[in-house]
């Protein structure tokens, strides 16, 4: 059942989104026209630089005024603009919504909102968006979508998603990129509470994509009544873990979660990737501000 209430974006919010665009540092723009500068100079509209003329260059790009001033044949170079391939891997495993009810879906709803906002930004800037929700395997992949008219299709798709199963990011990466997709920006939206997270991220490295990892967290995951012995049951795997109640255990758990997050952040930073922590309590403005700081988004066109 579609849940469009998650995406009840205000018009002002949408206007703010339209002023943003996705950034990538090392992925070349594609052949379709877009708003991303290509890494090579070509026949665009924005002047970039001069270079000496060599035999075989297009004489139409010769700058005759420069020839008159410097008595040298110089070729004018223009920046070429193209589209960006954006792959959004959305974690739909059971850990994103471990308990039924409004509070139990906070992480999943937040993740879908982030995915919807990023899709809106990408389509508005004529990028090509592929939505790949995953858990134990990849669900039906939507896209690539191109053009702002595809926004409602994407939102409808996201609204119909549901959670379930275990998280296997490694298997997901293999399935999504097995067909040799274009290099682009891969955005992983997940709570990263899986042993397969690091393995999946490692698989992205040889594919030479630009990667942004967005970790969605809920502080309720770190709360548990531990006044006596407790058997913890994993919502994904069903495994049980015996915990002997002890003071400061939850405090230590928070420190362990922070340490886990820092490990992944360090791993991403070392590879030149972006890592963004997105608590469910944070607004999209706060999230966008963090994304701006980390170079995932930029203002203006």
């Amino acid at each position: 059942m579609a849940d469009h209430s998650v995406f009840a974006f205000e018009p002002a919010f949408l206007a703010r989104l339209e002023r943003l665009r996705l950034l990538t540092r090392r992925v070349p723009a594609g052949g379709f026209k877009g708003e991303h500068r290509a890494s090579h100079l070509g026949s665009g509209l924005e002047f970039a630089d001069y270079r000496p003329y060599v035999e075989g260059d297009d004489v139409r790009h010769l700058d005759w005024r420069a020839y008159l001033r410097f008595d040298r044949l110089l070729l004018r170079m223009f920046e070429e603009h193209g589209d960006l391939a954006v792959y959004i891997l959305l974690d739909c495993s059971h850990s994103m919504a471990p308990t039924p009810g409004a509070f139990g879906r906070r992480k999943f709803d937040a993740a879908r909102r982030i995915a919807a906002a990023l899709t809106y930004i990408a389509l508005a800037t004529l990028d090509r968006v592929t939505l790949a929700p995953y858990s134990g395997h990849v669900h039906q992949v939507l896209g690539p979508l191109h053009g702002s008219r595809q926004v409602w299709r994407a939102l409808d798709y996201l609204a119909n998603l549901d959670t379930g199963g275990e998280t296997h990011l490694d298997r997901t990466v293999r399935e999504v990129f097995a067909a040799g997709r274009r290099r682009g920006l891969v955005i992983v939206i997940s709570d990263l509470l899986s042993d397969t997270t690091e393995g999946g991220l490692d698989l992205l490295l040889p594919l030479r994509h630009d990667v942004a990892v967005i970790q969605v967290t809920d502080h309720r995951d770190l709360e548990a009544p531990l006044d006596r012995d407790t058997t913890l049951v994993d919502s994904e795997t069903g495994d049980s873990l015996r915990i002997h109640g002890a003071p400061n255990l939850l405090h230590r758990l928070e420190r362990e979660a922070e340490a886990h997050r820092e490990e992944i952040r360090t791993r991403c930073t070392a590879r030149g990737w972006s890592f963004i922590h997105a608590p469910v309590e944070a607004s999209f403005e706060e999230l966008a501000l963090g994304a701006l700081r980390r170079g995932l988004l930029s203002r203006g066109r």
Partner: protein
Amino acid sequence: MPFWLPLGITALLVLAIYLIRPTAQALPVASTVLWRRLLAARKRRRDRLRWLLSLLLATTVAGSLSVAASRAPWLQPGGGDPIALAFDPSPTMQAGLPAGGPSRIELAAAEARRIVLEADAGSRFTVNADPTALTSTEVLAVLSDPLTGLSNGPDTEPAIPTARRVHVFTDGNGPYAPIIDPGTETHTVSVLVPARNAGIVRFATRPPATSAAGPEALLEIVVTDPAGGPVPVELTVADSETIRIRRQLELEPRDRFTALIDLDSFAPGPVTARIATPGDVFSLDNRAGLIDAGRAGPASTRLAVRHARTRTEPGRVLVMARSPGSFAGSAAALALEADASVDVVAVRAATGADDPPPEDPLPVADIAAFHRAAPAIPPAMPALYLDPPQAVAAGGLSPAAEAPLSQRRIDRTDASHPLLTGVSLLDLPVVVAARELDSQCSALASAGDRIAIAVCDPAPGSGSRSLTVAFDLDHSSLAQRPDLAALFQNAASWLTETPAITGDLTADTGLQDERATRINDSSLEPVPADRLAELDRPSRRPWSWRTLALAGLLLASFEAITFFRGLTL
């Protein structure tokens, strides 16, 4: 209380502690990844804690071993004085029990083990004269092999180290009287078990009755049997070639069988006498031998038999002393002054072979006595050497012996030797050094494995006779007894006489101690039969309630820690 009862109660308590633990509540969580990481980190901390505890435990163990090895006095509860265990070293302790049972020394070791196990925890023990304080474990190890662990010190009069209690293990056979601090609590543990024994108490040559007769050997056998009735004894006497005599005897207990054996019919060389008795428990006295030196080989020369003459005038004694001043007032000097049969003609300083000869001529004397009042090098032995006067003129006296000292009692003598005529030395306490005899000397009296008096009688023309009183006269009662004067008289005659046949018959293996054969002669009460029946039953120290309570407390503490702190591994 049987052993299994407290063990079962403890096991039930442990089971109950586990059963009353509350069941764990089930709590679904998004993922257990972070929890597993947290537990892994806690396990690393626990491993570090375990490592520290192991280090602490190892340090404690090493420290305990060091303290135990150093036998720190503060480890000994009750003031530190040990319990002394003194074992009678006399040969009769080697006698076995009837019906093939263990020996008396093994019975003594079993009794000692019982005392050790019943002693207070942490008690220390000493064994015989060794002052080393041993733990119960160490002394039990010593007692596990009593034949080697307890028989190394044959001292008949050991000085027992200071102890709060002394247990003396003896069969009462022979005068075993260890030196114990006055006032020390002393318990005598009897290991006397009367049993049948037949033993040779004398096998020695003696002068023939007439000059025409040949040498004879005197053989004496003593039998003891608590059951009474005649004891069958098979006697065999053999020379180096064959058995010459075989006789079946029926002897009544306490009977003394005596036989004179004409040695003319025996081949030259050693003569051995053996007895065999059913149920005999003491084998050490079943064999005796003698060597007739005058008939030792085909090249030997039989010497004419001459009786020692009886002196009518005092023997003249020339005393050579390491320090003439030290001789005055010594035990030897007092003994010689009191003896009318000897006359000290001069006391001169002793000179060695490299010293210039004395200016004054030596007076005429019958005996030259070298008196060592003070040892040159501790623990050298003060001694009295008796030599013919020509030994002094030749520039040398008997060498001074230097050897470890030991307090013993003389337990064997060659009573047939003319030097001991009228001299009784048995049971004389002496401080004696270990010496080695050369081939020309033999033991005239011995104390255990030590030679107390040695007599040297070389072949004619190869040297002169000499006599060494090889123990401390100042610490012996011999100087106060008439035996010393008699010994001097005999020495004066023997040193100046032509060798007689009595001197040729050196009975080196014929030294017999009659006490050793009377294994049942004791004033102690025999060991009860029920005690003997418990001998093979292993003794076990029961667990005390204090030990059980401590173990339970430790277990409960461990459970409490694991339960409340979640340290269960």
